[in-house]
């Protein structure tokens, strides 16, 4: 099937001080084609699409749109020429309502009342129900994405760029999104689809361009390749699957019963009656779409949010009313999701950061003074064991790339020899090889008898590491079930289905 060419990108190069984000990248997209841009984090996918959308300008290279030269200097120009983009982050305003958010992304929006009517019409047509007067801060992740998609559709785009659109959706929501995208494609809208999820790309995309370290390493037709082949092209090495050492289930190490706390976060979700137990050697995976209480659960377990003493028990000892330091002493360590500012103090060195959470359990103080030699040794131990790429332990945490810092922080918690380990998003923003090694070390710790709670939005990861599986939905936790034998459909139902999403049956 040949399509008329819509966008051609030739020899695009973009360098930042110290790093070449894109080097001589070329590909082309036909009208109505769903084209995947595939690559690891840091492969240069986002930089590439930002250039197409006019947010940044390439150093060299040319782009042509429908045969004419295309060099947008700002997003408004790209939008005028029919290029629209759905962002992964950073483009919605929580304190404004849906219609206002849509209006901000349009060149000359109609009056609010008319705009609201058009939003309703378009959302009906594409099966993405949305109330224009609701505050975006009150919407679920899936609904927020609909706001972005509708904002684009109202401008009748020729090319729709989607940056990792499914990372925050339930499986059912993903299905609905794909239906919408296929409908758009059949109407002649080309879609540039960025992702690193290979199965999705195989089921959705017509063509794929694979980037590694800023260069095009391959292009292929995803339906004709296996996911593993594409993954190896993406990573440039063969991958190994983490192996699990089966440990005998021990006694209960962490018990939580009927835990309810209010959220300290604006637009947050309060926890409602959370109960579960984790035995020694067991990994409990907690899934759920972002914003359903994951951050709050971590805070409540780490001790940043306190509750009644007997709501949280570590090895039978009530710790619910203790703060983080006492809980660490009692044998519970926690690794929050936000690396810069919550898990680490970004402007302090790795040595100092190592002391901040490990000081208690590794006994890094003497008579009230910090034992710097011991702390440095511990930091170096982490760096060696977790293959953290850093010039040395004295560089600031901020100077490390996200994936490297994540490896360091995971190492810091996992190497304290704690009986209970709670981790939120262990491999977020980490490349596939490092993610595999982090998962391996989680399994190793469990094999040594630790009870581990992994909160994650990556279902594949949870299925890989966890023995039992539960879902957080609007602050409530489902009853944990054994992971073995769970199907995607069952998980989808546990996740609360599609949050009221349905494909509209429009009659012509």
């Amino acid at each position, binding site marked *: 099937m040949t399509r008329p060419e819509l966008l051609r990108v030739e020899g695009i190069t973009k360098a930042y001080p110290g790093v070449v984000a894109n080097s001589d990248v070329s590909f082309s997209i036909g009208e109505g084609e769903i084209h995947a841009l595939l690559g690891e984090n840091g492969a240069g996918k986002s*930089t590439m699409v930002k250039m197409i959308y006019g947010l940044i300008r390439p150093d060299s290279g040319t782009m042509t749109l429908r045969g004419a030269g295309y060099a947008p200097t700002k997003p408004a120009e790209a939008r005028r020429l029919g290029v629209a983009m759905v962002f992964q982050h950073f483009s919605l305003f929580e304190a404004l309502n849906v219609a206002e958010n849509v209006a901000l992304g349009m060149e000359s929006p109609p009056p609010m009342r008319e705009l609201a009517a058009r939003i309703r019409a378009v959302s009906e047509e594409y099966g993405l129900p949305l109330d224009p007067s609701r505050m975006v801060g009150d919407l679920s992740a899936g609904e927020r994405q609909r706001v972005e998609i509708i904002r684009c559709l109202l401008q009748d785009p020729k090319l729709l760029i989607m940056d990792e659109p499914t990372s925050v959706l339930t499986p059912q929501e993903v299905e609905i999104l794909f239906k919408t995208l296929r409908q758009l494609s059949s109407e002649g809208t080309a879609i540039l689809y960025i992702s690193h999820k290979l199965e999705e790309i195989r089921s959705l995309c017509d063509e794929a361009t694979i980037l590694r370290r800023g260069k095009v390493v391959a292009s292929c037709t995803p339906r004709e390749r296996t996911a593993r082949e594409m993954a190896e092209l993406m990573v440039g090495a063969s991958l190994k699957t983490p192996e699990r050492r089966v440990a005998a289930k021990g006694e209960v190490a962490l018990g939580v019963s009927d835990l309810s706390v209010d959220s300290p976060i604006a637009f947050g979700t309060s926890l409602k009656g959370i109960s579960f137990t984790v035995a020694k050697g067991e990994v409990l995976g907690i899934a759920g779409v972002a914003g359903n209480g994951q951050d709050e659960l971590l805070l409540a377990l780490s001790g940043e949010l306190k509750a009644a003493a007997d709501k949280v028990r570590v090895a039978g000892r009530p710790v619910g009313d203790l703060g983080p330091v006492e809980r660490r002493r009692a044998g519970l360590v926690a690794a929050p999701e936000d690396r810069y500012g919550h898990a680490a103090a970004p402007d302090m060195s790795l040595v100092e950061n190592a002391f901040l959470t490990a000081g208690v359990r590794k006994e890094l103080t003497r008579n009230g003074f910090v034992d710097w030699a011991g702390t440095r040794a511990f930091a170096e131990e982490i760096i060696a064991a977790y293959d953290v790429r850093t010039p040395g332990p004295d560089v600031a945490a901020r100077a490390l790339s996200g994936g490297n810092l994540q490896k360091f922080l995971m190492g810091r918690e996992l190497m304290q020899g704690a009986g209970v380990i709670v981790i939120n998003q262990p491999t977020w923003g980490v490349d596939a090889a490092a993610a595999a090694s982090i998962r391996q070390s989680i399994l190793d710790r469990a094999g040594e008898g630790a009870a581990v709670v992994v909160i994650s939005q990556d279902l594949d990861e949870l299925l890989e590491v966890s023995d039992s599986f539960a879902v957080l939905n609007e602050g409530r936790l489902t009853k944990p079930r054994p992971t073995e034998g769970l199907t995607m459909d069952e998980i989808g139902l546990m996740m609360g289905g599609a949050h009221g999403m349905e494909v509209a049956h429009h009659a012509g």
Partner: protein
Amino acid sequence: MDFGGINPVILIATLMASAVPILLAALGETVVERSGVLNLGVEGMMIIGALGGFVVAVQTGSPVLGFIGGAVAGAALSLIFAALTQVFLANQVATGLALTLFGLGVSSLGGQGYNGIKPPATGQLLPDALADLPVVGPILFGHDWVVYFSIAMTAVLWWVLKATRVGLVIRAVGESHEAAHALGYKVNRIRLMCIAFGGAMAGIGGAYVSLARVPQWVDGITSGAGWIALAIVVFASWRPWRVLLGAWLFGGITVLQLNLQVAGSGIPVEYLSMAPYLITILVLVVMSAGRRGKANGAPAALGQNFHASR
């Protein structure tokens, strides 16, 4: 129609005028903060406006030109703040405090030689026939044009922020500068214009003190009005009509306690003097109580500098 030596009609008419400097400065600061910038230099911009307005009015003999001069002076000083915070990304709190100190010092220096001079009067706008009507006359028709201007600005800003594209963009920038940047808005340029507008409004407010309220030049003439304006913006939840309410409440209680002092009330002077601050804050806190988190209207990006990376 007096109560304990206090005439309520005169009281209301006076409070409307006495609230003008705080109201104008607070309205300007509302726009600045809605765009995500915390400018603590309101006091400095007001006093520079007071001096600029006074000098221009005395030199030209025209009070209207004086107010324009005040606006220009306030905006010019605010541009220093804008350059430091938006271009060089200096800390907004420290820069704002420095701006106040700088404004106080410069006005004291520049005001040398203007002590004891009387500026041209800013007269009432409407004919005496209207102003002499009983009760409604003094309250509705007996004011100079700046009082009407301040009320009109409240309505205009409310409408602009609520219903226009410009207002939406300002709110968006104050809510999330990253998102606004991703959509292609020039965050720092928009903020710079808001800062200049806030400076001009504070300047007019200051000019009203030296040209109409006092009216003469003395050092430190604004005596903390800029700080009250800042507080009113916060307690009014960044909403223009509540800013008007807060300013009038503060102005009203200030006038009332002065009248009570004159009338020789039994309450000690100290309590009377603190009453405007206490009651204004109390009322506005009660109004915004019961709403938590973002619902209180604070712009999410308030006080954060923005630098476009990648």
